[in-house]
């Protein structure tokens, strides 16, 4: 297939975002969904093509390592597809003044373009630029609910996010100082001689902390509960579901290609464990449903960090499974929580007032805990079996952490379910509350639920592509050979 089509997955949503205000108002509401549908179709085609062999696009005809590269392997194409589909499901259809709606739709499209850009970028500076683009778009969306609390939460998010970008930029500077290149394949080629030393590791930790702000890494995730509690449910769903996964994907690419070192893996493992413990216990203590979901999302991303720290394709497969599962479940839970949006006491009797919403909540909660036929079980199974296969005791400790936090997770989720279905506490004041979900939220989470159930039914069929994607992603040598066909001469010149 024509590889120049790859550029469209970034260009289409960006173009649509900036042309949207110019389109006549009759057609204006169609621009975004059409662009996203086109990206989804492209993602589907790319996924089919790249599963057998990764695709490379060198932009403008400049050859790498000088030119800019887009690299699409199975994982990148799958993320392009999910970015388009999830953005479409969380699309701001209406319910707002026209001017405001334009702004929200534009920002959502910019966010989608930045996310696809992060998935396909093959060099560090493009990663930095797309990361900043995603950051700025998410600041705009987070401030969009216009309450005073949202302004303060977004201010703190902006400051922490900028600090993260700054750290990432310093890390990239150090890498450039050592190697004189930003191309990931070229870096992978040069890394053993130039980057596998304390300075190189420092650069990796700086980038890890920097990108970790969006990936809700332990230490730099304090923005998450505040922003998710004050922003619209749709925005929280986008940030927790999509943006965090794309930042995580970039970290994993760096880990696999440039820094396949035990020290780097241990850092990921430790921070993941701390994130999982702090996130799940904080979720247990949370007394309103939005912050509970926010903390639980921090815990789940901790689990993904733990999984990606396992060396080899086994760890990548487990990490992908956890990330994709969380990508399906958490947006749906945020959509459901929008109208319930409050303290646990307000949920009493909610199951009677909105039976469908409550039933969907139970389904997602069960999958999040990891009850067998649901995909969450397979994700946790892959994680635990991967951890158990490692000889290092630290990995066994991580397995213990996963098991203990799963119990904590079950306790707080069942507590919510118990309150919703229970008879106690259903005061007359509660009966006055409007606990029914709007149709759009129900439809959105219904689609997520259908996808979840389909994944549960097709679990044996999904294992093969998942394994193939993980093998493809873990093969750093193939990445280098694909992007830089004449790699022997290059490393010869560098020495």
């Amino acid at each position: 297939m024509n590889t120049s089509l790859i550029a469209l997955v970034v260009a289409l949503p960006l173009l649509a975002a900036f042309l949207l205000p110019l389109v006549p108002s009759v057609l204006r509401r169609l621009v975004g969904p059409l662009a996203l549908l086109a990206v989804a179709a492209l993602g589907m085609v790319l996924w089919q093509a790249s599963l057998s062999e990764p695709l490379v696009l060198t932009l403008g005809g400049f050859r790498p390592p000088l030119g800019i590269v887009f690299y699409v392997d199975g994982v990148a194409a799958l993320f392009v597809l999910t970015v388009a589909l999830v953005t479409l499901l969380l699309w701001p259809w209406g319910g707002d003044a026209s001017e405001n709606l334009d702004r929200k739709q534009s920002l959502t499209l910019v966010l989608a373009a930045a996310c696809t850009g992060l998935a396909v970028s093959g060099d560090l500076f493009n990663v930095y630029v797309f990361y900043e683009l995603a950051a700025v778009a998410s600041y705009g969306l987070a401030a969009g609910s216009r309450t005073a609390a949202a302004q303060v939460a977004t201010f703190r998010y902006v400051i922490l996010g900028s600090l993260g970008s700054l750290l990432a930029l310093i890390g990239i500077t150090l890498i450039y100082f050592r190697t004189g290149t930003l191309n990931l394949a070229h870096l992978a080629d040069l890394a053993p001689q130039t980057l596998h030393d304390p300075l190189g590791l420092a650069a990796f930790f700086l980038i890890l902390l920097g990108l970790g702000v969006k990936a809700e890494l332990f230490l730099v995730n304090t923005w998450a509960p505040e922003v998710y509690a004050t922003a619209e449910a749709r925005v929280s769903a986008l940030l927790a579901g999509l943006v965090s996964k794309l930042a995580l994907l970039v970290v994993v690419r760096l880990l696999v290609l440039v820094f396949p070192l035990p020290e780097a893996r241990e850092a990921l493992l430790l921070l993941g464990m701390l994130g999982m413990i702090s996130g799940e216990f904080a979720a247990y203590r949370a007394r309103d449903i939005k912050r509970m979901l926010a903390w639980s999302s921090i815990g789940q991303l901790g689990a993904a960090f733990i999984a990606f720290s396992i060396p080899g394709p086994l760890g990548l497969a487990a990490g992908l499974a956890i990330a994709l599962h969380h990508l399906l479940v958490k947006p749906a839970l945020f959509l459901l929580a929008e109208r319930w949006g409050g303290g646990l006491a307000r949920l009493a009797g909610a199951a009677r007032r909105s039976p469908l919403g409550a039933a969907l909540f139970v389904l997602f909660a069960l999958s999040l805990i990891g009850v067998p036929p649901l995909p969450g079980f397979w994700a946790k199974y892959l994680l635990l079996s991967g951890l158990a296969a490692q000889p290092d005791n630290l990995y066994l400790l991580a397995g213990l952490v996963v098991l203990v936090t799963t119990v904590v997770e079950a306790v707080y989720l069942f507590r919510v379910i118990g309150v919703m279905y229970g008879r106690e506490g259903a005061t007359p004041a509660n009966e006055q509350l409007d606990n029914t979900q709007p149709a759009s939220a129900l439809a959105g989470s219904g689609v997520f639920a259908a996808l979840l159930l389909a994944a549960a039914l097709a679990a044996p069929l999904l294992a093969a592509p998942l394994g193939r994607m993980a093998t493809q992603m873990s093969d750093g040598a193939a990445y280098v050979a694909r992007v830089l066909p004449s790699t022997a001469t290059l490393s010869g010149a560098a020495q």
Partner: protein
Amino acid sequence: MSEFALLTLLIGALGLIALGIGGLVLSRNLFRIVLALSLAEAGANLLLVLVGFRRDAVAPIIESGQALTAIMVDPIPQAMVLTAIVIGVGVQALALSLAIRAYAAYGTLDMSVMRRRMEADIDAAAGAQPATSLHAPAGGRPLPPISAPRLAHDKGAQA
């Protein structure tokens, strides 16, 4: 440029970054936080330019008819610095506009006071009890003994 000047610039860049990050962590005033951020960004940008520096090199601009024999400084870090500066300015403007709106809503620029108000607002919107309070401990436990000045200080901060 001498070795000494280069070293001074390097120390300056690292010092700016350290000052900025220190300021981010330590200041409570919203405006100072934004200023600290811009200091740190200036330091990072200076570091990035220094990485591309070459001794006795010319600016990376090719004029027509000029032979390509002169050593040039590395243009890639300069392009990156331009991008980083533009992004930094945009984000600072955004942060300041958010600070203005937050000031209009809460009437203070003190981050810790503002954060307490925000938590209270979130709790009130959710209809949940505040997480920890001197006045009503979680789980209905009895009040711990509190010295009178501390209680007064807490009340003063909330007012």
